[in-house]
């Protein structure tokens, strides 16, 4: 039974066709999936349909055996605790410290009063500390987040997602705002998480080489439709043309090394 399953998911905005058009695929535990495609293709919409931040117009999405479309608010919150998310602009509370932002990941598990007062158990704090150590942020743990660099902020975002003990982590263009060094650090962390913790990672990316290098599987989306779903080694120039609508030589990346001829 797949961890995540989408069946005929369609999304229309304002009765106009179609941000997502009959999207179907399934993802297993521990897979590293990259979603690539041109801007406006529906990648962000797709990601946000998975945790119902955006409501799909039709179709069925099931996460860990639970169909998400008919859930009550309370059950939806419970579902969301199993799905972590990281964002292009980090989406941290800048005025708070790193440790406070990381612990926000536990709010889904807390009662209203405990969460409002910020009462986290000793165990939660230890876990947060361990995760912060793994990501290499111990020096910054008590710093305010607006004093961090982009790469550090994104690691805080990852820590926040990890402290939820999620089964899936959704990443909406996590390295779009980062320099090449920081990008590599982030993608390496994501790959470690997928291999060593067995957490499914689904990433939206603009950088095709990054997708090719890190993923087990690539999903190409164009105009709301899935036009490619397979292993990186199967991604040929013809598929690139289907996804991006131009020859790969006209785009700023090089498939050439991997395919002689």
């Amino acid at each position, binding site marked *: 039974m797949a961890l995540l399953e989408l069946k005929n998911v369609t999304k229309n905005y304002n009765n106009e066709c179609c941000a997502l058009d009959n999207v179907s695929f399934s993802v297993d535990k521990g897979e590293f999936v990259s979603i690539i495609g041109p801007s406006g293709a529906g990648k962000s919409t797709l990601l946000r349909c998975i945790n119902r*931040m955006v409501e799909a117009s039709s179709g069925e999405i099931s996460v860990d055996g639970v169909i998400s479309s008919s859930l009550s608010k309370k059950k939806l919150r419970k579902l*969301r605790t199993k799905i*972590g998310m990281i*964002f292009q602009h980090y989406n941290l*509370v800048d*005025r708070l410290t790193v440790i406070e932002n990381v612990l926000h990941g536990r709010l889904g598990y807390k009662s209203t009063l405990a969460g*409002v007062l910020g009462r986290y158990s000793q165990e939660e704090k230890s876990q947060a500390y361990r995760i912060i150590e793994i990501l290499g942020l111990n020096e910054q743990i008590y710093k305010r987040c607006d004093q961090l660099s982009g790469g550090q902020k994104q690691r805080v975002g990852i820590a926040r997602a990890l402290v939820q003990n999620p089964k899936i982590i959704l990443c909406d263009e996590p390295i779009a705002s980062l320099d090449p060094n920081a990008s590599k650090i982030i993608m390496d962390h994501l790959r470690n998480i997928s291999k060593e913790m067995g957490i499914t990672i689904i990433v939206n990316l603009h950088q095709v080489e990054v997708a090719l290098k890190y993923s087990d599987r690539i999903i190409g989306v164009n105009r709301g439709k899935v036009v490619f779903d397979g292993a990186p080694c199967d991604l040929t120039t013809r598929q690139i043309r289907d996804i991006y609508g131009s020859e790969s030589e006209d785009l700023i990346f090089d498939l050439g090394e991997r395919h002689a001829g």
Partner: protein
Amino acid sequence: MRDDIFTKRRNGNLVFFSALLILSVGSIIITEYDVIKGFTSITKAVIWGGSNFYPDAESLRILPEILPKLQETVLMSIAATTVAAVLALVLSLAGSQTTRINRIFSIVSRGIASFFRNIPLVAWAMVLMISFSQSPLTGYLALFFGSLGFLTRAFMETIDEVGNNSIEALQATGASYFHIIFQAVLPASMPQMISWLLYMIETNIRDATLVGVLTGTGIGFSFDLYYKRFDYHAASLVVLLIVITVIVIELVSNNVRRVIL
């Protein structure tokens, strides 16, 4: 072709300033405002002020009478503002685009804020005097309602400015509405809100003097009393004290702002 843009702009400016001129001259003529008399009166006013409107040694005798009144006015303003701020916080959470629960509450909240804010303070004081007659309570309530309206609007804009990012992130972790409010929205908007609170306190102290004239309490009433007795030296002392108080409050609040920001 480029010349056209500059010509257009110049013509636009000409039209604008001509309209402004016509409006000004027109209003002066219609209201029969004597421009020359207006300017000469300034010199006359300065001369009168210099010869009459200053505190002298004798007027210092009133100090023990008016200092308690000054204290009463200042404390009343602070009390009215702080209580209004707490209520405004609740209303603004309901009314803001990013944190509202549903549209009806939002519209109601904005309606209340608009209504209270747009009634002039003097009108509030006079209406409230019918129920509460001449007492400090009237002044307190007049300031309270005015502040409630203004602060609700100010807080709503602060909350909107914080933006949706951190709210989106916490929703994705499964946090509840109250978790999000207390762990993301309030910490992020607190400095700006405190800034507005301090601004409102300053403004209210100034307005309290005016309200005092109407309600027969506080330092405003003292000013009115001495002025109507033609005791200009005493009246000017009162004005001086008010100015000093406002400056002191301003200095204190600037320091507070520097620390918390």
